[in-house]
Every structure is written in structure tokens, then in C-alpha cells.
């Protein structure tokens, strides 16, 4: 089953065309990594999928339901605001710089959205949160405030926050780019754990080795286009010199 489908996405900021016709889909339980140089539009694809940005053109489909579709003039038409709320349930987004709510404890960061948005009871929200915190090794931090945590811990909390809403797909927007190598490791471990549990994910990352190990499929993006797409084996043994060059730089 396709969790997410994007058809012919185009996105410009003012005159600058950032995404030039991108189509991709993600099946249930699949892990898709998007790699590519900075400014290639990787994050914008995720931000459009998460509806933080509106695409100019293209379809956005979650579980077969259209959040936006191309009209006859080739412009994206989104569902009415009220209808769109429904789609927030389907996905979660983990930001590069966490964006935790600083005035809430770790526990409240995780429980507040389920309680406010999904009207889950406090008891159930806290039970869910404790299960997640335990899984992510943060049980003892539940009463802490974000500023008291390391970057890696903050990122793990933000993953828990996204998971608490039980999304069908989780987006990661360079989840380790703000972390040092040591902290990167602890976050990647958590994402690997999720992959093992067959969580559907799209990961925008610069961690090549990680993408290789974890992904079912990798997309290489440049200049707002998909230049290469395939299994990790295909991507890492490609004959495309540009992709080879890019990956080679990271392999060191």
C-alpha cells in the first residue's frame, strides 16, 4: 500500500525554481533516503509533503486520499483547510534543529499534541509517552526541560513527540546535521530501531553510510530534480559520474 505519493511536484520561491517536477512514492514499511548536495531541494520536498510549504504544481496523496491535486491549468489545488487537518494525522516531521517547546517538560512536549489535537485522555497520552521514552532511553528525563538536555537527547525527544501522534509516515529533515558525531550516533541508532519495526520513513540526510545501511531505496537529488533512484546497491555502484563523485566525497 502506498502511504505517500507525490506526482509532478513543482515549487518556486519567487522566481527561483527549487523543485522541478519530482514524483515519488513510498510504500508501507519502506525507508526512503534522499541525498544530494545542499540547495538541491531535498528539504523542500519534505516541507511540501508536510504542508509547511505549498507546492505550485503537483499532486499530494496520502493513503490514496488527495490533499492536493493538479487542476487543468497545472496548478496545485489543496483541499479546504478543515479537510487538510485530517492529513496531519498521517505524518510526523523531525526537524534539523528539533524545535521542541522550551516551556514544556519532556513529558508535556510528547503528551500535549495527542491531548490537544487528538483529544486523547491525559492518562493514555502519558502512558504512550512513557512507552516511547523508555524505548528511546529517556525515562529519567521526563521531568526535564529541553534546555537541560544534550542535542542528541533533544532530537530523541522530538522523535518521540512525532511518534506520539502515531503517524503512518515519519519525515526526517537532516535529523543529525546539528549534532556532533557522538550525538549523531545515538540518534541514528533510534532511527535504525524504527526501521527494524517497519516504520515508514523518508530521511533527508548527509550520512551516506547510514543511508546505505538503512534504506530500501535512495534518491539522489540535484538542481530540483531526481538524478538517480534505486536500491542502495544500485546507487553506491552507479556509473553516473555525478552521483559517484558526490558519494565518493563522503566515503572519504
Amino acid at each position, binding site marked *: 500500500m502506498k502511504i505517500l505519493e507525490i506526482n509532478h511536484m513543482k515549487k518556486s520561491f519567487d522566481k527561483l525554481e527549487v523543485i522541478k517536477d519530482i514524483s515519488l512514492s513510498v510504500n508501507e514499511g519502506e525507508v526512503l533516503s534522499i541525498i544530494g548536495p545542499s540547495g538541491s531541494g531535498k528539504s523542500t520536498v519534505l516541507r511540501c509533503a508536510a504542508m509547511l510549504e505549498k507546492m505550485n504544481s503537483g499532486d499530494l496523496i496520502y493513503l490514496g486520499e488527495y490533499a492536493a491535486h493538479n487542476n487543468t491549468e497545472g496548478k496545485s489545488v489543496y483541499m479546504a483547510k478543515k479537510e487538510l487537518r485530517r492529513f*496531519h494525522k498521517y505524518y510526523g516531521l523531525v526537524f534539523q534543529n528539533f524545535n521542541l517547546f522550551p*516551556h514544556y517538560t519532556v513529558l508535556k512536549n510528547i503528551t500535549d499534541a495527542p491531548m*490537544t*489535537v487528538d483529544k486523547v485522555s491525559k492518562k493514555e497520552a502519558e502512558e504512550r509517552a512513557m512507552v516511547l521514552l523508555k524505548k528511546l532511553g529517556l525515562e529519567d528525563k521526563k521531568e526535564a*526541560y*529541553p534546555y537541560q538536555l544534550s542535542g542528541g537527547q533533544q532530537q530523541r525527544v*522530538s522523535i518521540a513527540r512525532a511518534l506520539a501522534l502515531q503517524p503512518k509516515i515519519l519525515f526526517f529533515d537532516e535529523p543529525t546535521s546539528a549534532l556532533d558525531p557522538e550525538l549523531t550516533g545515538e540518534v541514528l541508532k533510534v532511527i535504525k530501531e524504527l526501521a527494524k519495526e517497519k516504520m515508514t520513513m523518508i530521511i533527508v540526510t548527509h550520512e551516506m553510510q547510514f543511508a546505505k545501511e538503512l534504506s530500501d531505496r535512495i534518491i539522489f537529488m540535484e538542481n530540483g530534480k531526481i538524478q538517480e533512484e534505486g536500491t542502495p546497491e544500485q546507487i553506491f555502484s552507479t556509473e553516473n559520474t555525478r552521483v559517484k563523485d558526490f558519494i565518493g566525497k563522503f566515503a572519504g
Partner: protein
Amino acid sequence: MNIAVMFLELGKGFITTVEIFMLTLIFSLPLGLIISFGRMSKNCILRTITKFYISVMRGTPLMLQLIVVYFGPFYVFGLQLSRSYRFIAVILAFVLNYAAYFAEIYRSGIESMPKGQYEAAKVLGYTKGQTFFKIILPQVIKRVMPSITNETITLVKDTSLAFVLSIVEMFTTAKQIAASETTIMPLMVAGLFYYIFNLAVALGMELIERKLNYYR
């Protein structure tokens, strides 16, 4: 007049001072927030109106505003208002004036909030209202507390302007006694009252700031 009587008289005026202070704060703090929404509105007309309102309120003397609010209804609409309107006029003018200042303080706080907080809330599915009241406003209050304290302290001293509409607050009383007794003693004592009042205000605000310091 002995010191005890003088203190008693000033004390009576002081009650009026505190009344003006409290009522102004109670109404202008929320009104300021509403005005700041107008100031940041996407609606161009609303934004221009509030911008103009704020610039007039900040650009003309509060004393003049007091007079306009008091005499305005008569000159503009020919309304004959009872004497009790005086006190209402004072509160009204103070509220309208301070709300303009508070609006700009709120705006600075709201605009300083990182975009990521809005985005995180949006992705989690919060409505705009929920985002503002649960995520943004609590953080804004912490950010603007020092500026609010500043304005609040100024308000304590500004209450003395109520004399323009013959409201007998502490400073009016002090001047009357000073004139009839030909001594500046009552004015000095009034100054002491203001100072102590402001010490209390500053202390209270500091307590609130410290309470908000549970996170960074």
C-alpha cells in the same frame, strides 16, 4: 497641619492612585494584545488603522489625551456627561494610551519568536489558536516581561496626570497641602510614596520573572 494628618490625606489620594494604576493595567494589558494582532494583521486596512492609532497614542502627550477623552463627547456629540464620567475618562485615556505601548511590546515579542515553533506546532496539527495560546504566548510573555515592567513603573508615576481632570489622587492632594501650608514637605512625602509603590511593583515583577525562569 501635623504630619499624621498629612499622611492621612495623602493616603486617601494614594488609594485613588492605586485604583487608576490597577484598572489601567487590568484593561490595557489584554487590549494591547488585541491591538498588536491588528498591527500584525494581513489585512492592510486594519494594519494601517492600528499603526496610525499607535503613532497618535505615542506621539501626543497623555495629558492632552486625557482632555480629549473627557471633553470629546461634549464637543463632538454634544453629550452632557455627569461628573462621575471624570474618573471613567481618566481610566479610558490611560487604558487607550498604555494599550498602544503594550501592543508594540507584544509585537516585538511575538515577532522575535523563532519560525520553528510555529512549524513544529503546525506539523503536530495544532490549530492557529492553539498554537498561539499554548505555544507562542507563554514564551512571548517571558520575553517581554522586562519591557512590561518598565511601562508599569512609568504608569505609577503617570497616574499623577489625572489631576488634569481634577481627579484627586495623591499628587493633587500633595500640591494642595503644599500650597496651603507653604511647604514642599507634602511633595517630598508623595515622592516617597511613589518610590515605595514602585519598589513594590519592581519586586512583584521580579518575582514573576523569576517564576518564568524555569526554562530557557
